[in-house]
């Protein structure tokens, strides 16, 4: 005998239209899933969601639950209208760390679906905005079993609460010619060094790592992570002059002027040459390109327009920016350059970046206020105090421009200047 369905007039409207409908998916579970537990849970969920649509209010509240041995990783949800929709009154979400880079075999996804179906609502998200697989909707009895089951075959929880959060890395080296680093290795080395901090919230607030293989920053790392690792390169970009010539004629053709070289050149001027933020790229009369690599700021634009002709250099590494985050409580922050360039090739290099992360998190754990992100702390104490706290020397690449207000105490100038000159001398010697 079929359970009665809560009416969903407003949600039904979201079944119309060409885009895949989550509501249709919900209904299929409600109507066709063999397991009565799932059918009724989703029925309740639809009922509560319709109620939200009609009243324009949300009805979930939080709580505290976690799997045995961990402090976080689950977002508990209890319904405030459980009396109206008892079937889904407990609807917790497990945040599960994806493989670095979000790669899956169909088999593994089927396996995860099977486990989830056994214990949960049958609803999952690839992925949440912090990168977790979100298994949405387990009750207080089942979530532990689900975790135990998938944990056995290689899956672990991500972060929730004041802790190191699940990381993100772009597809990068796995499928992108722009990549300047091993995003995958960086992501895992950093995250798995902090597993304890992921599972046991004990920091002032959340801390996020994101890795993008180049300045296109496909992971929004600069604004959306506390520790942004962005691939870049130090030597000359590679120019395939033949490909440049081809591109010119190809573009001419694309704009309907087959064979018209000057039309192709014009396209190059309008779309590449004139768009370089530092005018570092020049198209010569013989259709070759000259790049002023000393003035190129690695913005990626010209490489983006002509990936076949231009390639990143060989002396690759990363730039690290610290302190990005979103709105609360002082407005969005972008990360600030703290490491202009660092190589990531040898084991030592990797140890160095992990150590840097450790030092930063320790300093922040020491000095951050409750619920204060690393970037908010830097904003409060000033970049210089932060740099001194993590023992990094000031570098002009960390700034857009020097201060413009004279309200600064400059005693100690001579020592600071001396240090600079010494560093420069050492660099010279080293080089």
């Amino acid at each position, binding site marked *: 005998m079929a359970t009665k369905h809560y009416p969903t007039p*407003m949600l039904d409207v979201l079944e119309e239209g060409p885009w895949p409908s989550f509501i249709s998916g919900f209904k299929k579970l409600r109507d066709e899933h063999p397991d009565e537990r799932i059918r009724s849970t989703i029925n309740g969920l639809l009922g509560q969601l319709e109620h939200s*649509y009609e009243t324009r209010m949300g009805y979930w509240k939080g709580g505290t639950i976690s799997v045995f041995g961990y402090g976080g990783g689950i977002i508990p949800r209890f319904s405030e209208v459980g009396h109206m929709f008892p079937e889904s009154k407990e609807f917790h979400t497990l945040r599960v760390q994806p493989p670095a880079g979000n790669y899956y075999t169909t088999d593994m996804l089927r396996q995860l679906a099977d486990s989830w179906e056994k214990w949960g609502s049958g609803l999952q998200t690839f992925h949440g905005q912090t990168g977790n697989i979100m298994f949405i909707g387990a009750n207080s009895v089942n979530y532990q079993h689900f975790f135990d089951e998938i944990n056995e075959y290689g899956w672990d929880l991500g972060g929730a609460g004041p802790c190191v959060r699940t990381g993100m890395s772009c597809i990068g080296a796995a499928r992108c010619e722009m990549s300047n680093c091993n995003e995958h290795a960086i992501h895992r080395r950093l995250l798995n060094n902090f597993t304890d901090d992921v599972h046991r919230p004990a920091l002032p607030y959340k801390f996020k790592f994101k890795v993008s293989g180049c300045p296109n920053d*496909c992971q929004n790392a600069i604004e959306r992570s506390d520790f942004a690792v962005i691939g870049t390169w130090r030597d000359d970009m590679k120019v395939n002059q033949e490909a440049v010539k081809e591109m010119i004629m190809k573009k001419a053709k694309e704009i309907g002027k087959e064979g018209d070289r000057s039309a192709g050149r014009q396209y190059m001027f309008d779309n590449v040459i004139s768009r370089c933020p530092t005018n570092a790229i020049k198209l010569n009369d013989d259709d070759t390109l000259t790049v002023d690599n000393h003035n190129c700021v690695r913005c990626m634009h010209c490489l983006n327009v002509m990936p076949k002709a231009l390639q990143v250099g060989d002396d690759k590494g990363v730039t690290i920016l610290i302190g990005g985050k979103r709105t609360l*409580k002082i407005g969005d922050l972008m990360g600030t350059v703290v490491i202009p360039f660092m190589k990531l090739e040898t084991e030592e290099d990797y140890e160095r970046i992990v150590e840097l992360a450790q030092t930063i998190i320790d300093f922040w754990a020491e000095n951050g206020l409750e*619920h204060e992100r690393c970037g908010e702390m830097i904003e409060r104490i000033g970049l210089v105090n932060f740099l001194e706290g993590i023992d990094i020397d000031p570098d002009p690449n960390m700034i857009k421009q020097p201060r413009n207000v004279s309200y600064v105490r400059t005693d100690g100038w001579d020592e600071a200047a001396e240090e600079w000159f010494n560093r420069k001398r050492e660099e010279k010697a080293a080089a």
Partner: protein
Amino acid sequence: MAAPEMRDPIESGCPDGFQYMHPVMRRNYGLWAYHEDPRPGVLVHVSKTGEKIWTVRAGTQRILDVFTLRKLMDIGDTYGDGYVHFTIRSNIEFLVADEAKVEPLVSALEDAGFPVGGTRNSVTTLSHTQGWLHCDIPGTDASGVVKAMMDELLPEFKSWSMPNRVHITTSCCQINCGGQGDIAINVQHTKPPKINHALVGNVCERPSVVARCPVAAIRPAMVDGKPSLEVDEKKCICCGACYPPCPPMQINDHQATQLAIWIGGNHSNARGKPTFQRLVAAGIPNNPPRWPEATAIVKKILACYKEGAKDWERINEWVERIGWPRFFEVTGLPFTKYHIDNWRGARANLNSSTHIRF
């Protein structure tokens, strides 16, 4: 009674992705030479070794029921190589080593109702959050907003008709988990929280709630003999930051909770440096199930952008070139006192020059 046997977790952390990676990608890891775009939604990356990998990208509803997930897996097995990748925008990508598989794969996806597209200069899938479906503080829904808008933006998803890629985001409260983008549809509360004084004492850690307010509008107070909190409604900017740590400070309202639209958030370093979003429209009704008012504004902005921008200009670059006064002119959106910054460092957003267009 003895505590039940509990199992200790295996703290394996972030899994190795290589085990799930297409063999061609594994073999050519870090060796890619360039890519081409055979058609919207399809990429082919060519390795220095000469090997190639084709990517077919399709939109999903992000929150997948097991049936839909299995449907996608079936397609992946029948038409693909059994390897997939999810993008940061919850699009699914099928990876195949054989060009011949591309077209059948595309049709299979389209036939099953998964639109193929979202690459290059298209409007890709809106990034979204939890909303009424799961969060404890939402002012609106997320999946529903995205579904409603993508229904109308499908042509732009499936074609390359935009000057550059368009990244749109939605968030369901002012915390903005959805991030920012070329266009961000965010919640904007317009009334201070209504406080349920009876509950504050038990539910909320008052000092930390006080500390959470960006403008120090909250002070501890005794209300009918009970410890509670008090909001200086003149100071309050209705941000809702006090609500998560203290649910009795009800910020959500079926009328006063509205939507605002922000543009010009750009995270990439291409050409210009990354930029923050800027407010263009507020006072937009939070109107389920299809939020037509918000959608209309988004479409208007996209139309003007498409019309006015040069190739490769992101929305912020377009507006910065033509100037903000012109933006309000062409979109017909009203300019109000609310656009004029009054937050910390507001000065940097004021015009301290005579650079004016007449």
